């Protein structure tokens, strides 16, 4: 037809136009007015990192708030931030001395009262912070004097400082008292307008659209985060990865990450952009409904779970889809995390064995089930494609993160394809403990694993702890409670005029970035 011919001709013209367009290069959105626009797919209706568990809020958390200590991503060392020094009085008592020159965005100076208030708030189960498991080791905080705080632990917890560095954001005393009451009678803590001590302050939260941060001009001098250069940082939600790439190419935004490999490889050709692949702590996994509460009981059978593990070609996934910095995962944790053992039972790619296991379990013709996912749809589709080859026919339900999380918590997911970034905490407990100690994300609820983890995490000696952690990880692998898939390698793409260095902790340091 005429129109079809026209269209085809159009695409040829488009190709020519594309090369002209790419050569001219985008005008960076933020360079002119010293602002930076970054975008991801996720909607962050609130800006409080304790009450919405997303990576964006961990990032925003580290810009708007400060933690007592901070991990230097270059050396993995613990460095001072709000606390100037600290001291283990014994294995369950930690003393910290605070800076005296810190002010909240509200203008109020920060002191021990704020730290005590925050730590006591987040460590109470009834306050239900999203990452409760990560701070539940805190028993109580106590004020020693105006700038000195004592933290009591329930039991010895060796990686305590790493956790404080990861998400111990200090709020102003009484911050959550202003929380409005939700319909069900609970307080909506996340709705309180953000107020931190960090280098940026939140000036706008538009649910589903953007969070705007502006430079805090009275940020304390000489801290780890230094003196921020960029005046305004705008986070935008752009759902579609291709739209984000388009916006970056046209210069409407300055910085994206989680760029799919195929896209990243093609963006590399654009002279106006920098594309980098960096290792991250994020792990992709399949979690089974091991108790059949979703109504589909297949995965209560270990053989079926093992069949799933054998059916997926994880080597090919990492090599062809994820990126050069990715490796196959064998445990529900990242190999760079302390005590994360990968020398457990491995499930090699073996479709024949998978079929045999299915047959043995009584499904010679395969089976049909639902699979839920929220992120990187093409990874999920690749997994589904591999599963289909052995007769494991997955019906995909692809949701937004919050809806996915809800489905997992309600036990509606026979298989959940999730990912976990451990809040960038380089310790095994940040991932494995989160998913296996009976919290809302735990679909396995295996008492044996729970007991073994608790035993391991009661040891303060690093070597002993590392050894003890092998046991729960071995059991998880033997029982195939999970199929850990691969570690993420993240592609970053940003304007070449932006001086920015990706860090492996997946917390982009915009406070350290500047326009060239």
């Amino acid at each position, binding site marked *: 037809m005429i129109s079809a011919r026209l269209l085809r001709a159009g695409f040829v013209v488009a*190709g020519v136009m594309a090369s002209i367009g790419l050569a001219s290069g985008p005008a960076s959105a933020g360079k002119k007015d010293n602002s930076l626009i970054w975008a991801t797919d996720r909607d962050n209706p609130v800006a409080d990192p304790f009450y919405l568990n997303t990576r964006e809020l961990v990032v925003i958390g580290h810009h708007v708030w400060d933690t007592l200590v901070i991990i230097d991503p270059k050396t993995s060392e613990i460095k001072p931030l709000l606390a100037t020094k600290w001291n283990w009085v014994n294995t369950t008592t930690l003393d910290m001395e605070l800076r005296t020159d810190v002010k909240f965005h509200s203008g109020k100076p920060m002191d021990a009262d704020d730290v005590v208030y925050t730590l006591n708030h987040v460590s109470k189960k009834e306050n239900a912070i999203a990452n409760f498991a990560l701070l539940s080791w805190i028993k109580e905080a106590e004020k020693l004097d105006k700038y000195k705080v004592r933290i009591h632990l329930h039991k010895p917890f060796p990686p305590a400082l790493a956790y404080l560095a990861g998400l111990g954001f200090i709020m102003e005393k009484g911050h959550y008292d202003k929380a409005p009451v939700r319909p069900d009678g609970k307080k909506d803590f996340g709705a309180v307008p953000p107020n931190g001590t960090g280098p940026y302050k939140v000036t706008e939260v538009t649910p589903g659209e953007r969070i705007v941060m502006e430079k805090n001009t009275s940020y304390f001098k000489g801290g780890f985060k230094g003196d921020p250069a960029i005046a305004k940082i705008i986070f935008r939600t752009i759902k579609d990865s*291709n739209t984000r790439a388009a916006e970056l*190419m046209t210069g409407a935004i300055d910085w994206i990450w989680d760029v799919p490999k195929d896209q990243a490889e093609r963006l590399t050709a654009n002279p106006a952009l920098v594309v980098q692949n960096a290792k991250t702590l994020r792990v992709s996994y399949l979690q089974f409904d091991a108790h059949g509460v979703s109504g589909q009981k297949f995965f209560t059978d270990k053989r079926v779970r093992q069949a799933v593990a054998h059916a997926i070609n994880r080597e090919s996934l990492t090599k062809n889809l994820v990126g050069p910095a990715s490796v196959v995962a064998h445990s529900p944790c990242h190999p760079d995390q302390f005590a994360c053992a990968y020398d457990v039972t491995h499930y090699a790619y073996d479709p024949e064995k998978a079929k045999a296991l299915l047959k043995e379990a009584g499904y010679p013709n395969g089976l049909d089930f639902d699979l839920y996912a929220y992120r990187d749809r*093409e990874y999920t*589709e690749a997994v*589904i494609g591999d599963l289909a080859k052995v007769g494991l026919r997955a019906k995909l339900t692809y949701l937004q993160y919050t809806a996915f999380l809800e489905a997992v918590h309600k036990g509606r997911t026979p298989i959940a394809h999730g990912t976990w970034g451990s809040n960038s905490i380089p310790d095994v407990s940040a991932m494995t403990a989160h998913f296996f100690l009976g919290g809302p994300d735990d679909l396995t609820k295996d008492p044996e694993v729970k007991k073994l983890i608790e035993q391991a995490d009661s040891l303060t000696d690093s070597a002993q702890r590392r050894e003890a952690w092998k046991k729960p990880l071995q059991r998880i692998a033997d029982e195939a409670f999970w199929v850990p898939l691969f570690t993420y390698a993240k592609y970053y793409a940003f304007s070449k005029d932006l001086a920015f260095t990706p860090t492996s902790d997946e917390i982009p340091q915009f406070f350290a970035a500047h326009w060239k």
Partner: protein
Amino acid sequence: MAQTTLPGLHIIDGIAAPTPGALLRQRILRHWGLLSGGLILAAIVAMAIFAPLLAPHDPYDQDLARKLIPPVWHLSAKASWTYPLGTDHLGRDYLSRLLYGSRISLLIGFSAMLISGVIGTTLGVLAGYFGGRVDTAVNFIVTTRLAMPVVLVALAVVSLVGSSLTVVIWVLGLLLWDRFAVVMRSATQQVRSREFIVAAQAVGCSTPRILLAEVAPNVLNHLIVIATLEMAQAILLEAALSFLGLGVQPPTPSWGLMVSEAKGLMFFDPWLIAIPGIALFLLVLSINMLGDGLRDVTAPENRG
């Protein structure tokens, strides 16, 4: 809202021919829209039926090692006749997926059209034949249905019930009957007052008999035209639902879904969305042209 804005492909009518049959044949052969529409549609239907024979590969067979091979006309070293239209982001043969995808589009379009046709025709014929209160009631139902935003209601229901091929077919079928009802109503009204109906009523034929034996054959040509339009409509809606992720679910090859899956690379490899998009366009175009042509040929006086 009684007027339906039917597409009008116009062509000069044939000069009066001796018999109605010959006249019809002559009109068909002179109507290039009807002919080309019919030919394209026939080709797509043949593609769907013979997909297993025509497809060079299994449409579900993925291999990440051979992903994103460009189509054969592309100036790339990777392009080859092994994968004439290239491969998608998971290394599946694009031509095979396109061929099998035609089955989904046709199946959904046809089934949804059947469902909506039964509902709409029943309502329209009843309203047109009985008139009065029945007519008022049907008119009201049609108006109410028109007031509901189709895409939104379809998406909402599919998301609440859960998406599958069957759900999509039923939702579309239950939503798209309004045009059937409107056109059938006016067609029946025209037929009702004709002598043969009055005669049938006079000799005491039962109402169902009159409806089936006398009314139905005389409104059939209108029915076919609307059927093609609604089938095209259903195909476009299915594609939109699948594009938004609430229609046919992967890995089933649906053209809408193919566009959706490929849009991540559309700025770099535009052929990925061009191929399924053009396929959808051609299918809908051919059905529309066939419908327009049929209307012109069977009822040239009704052209808009």
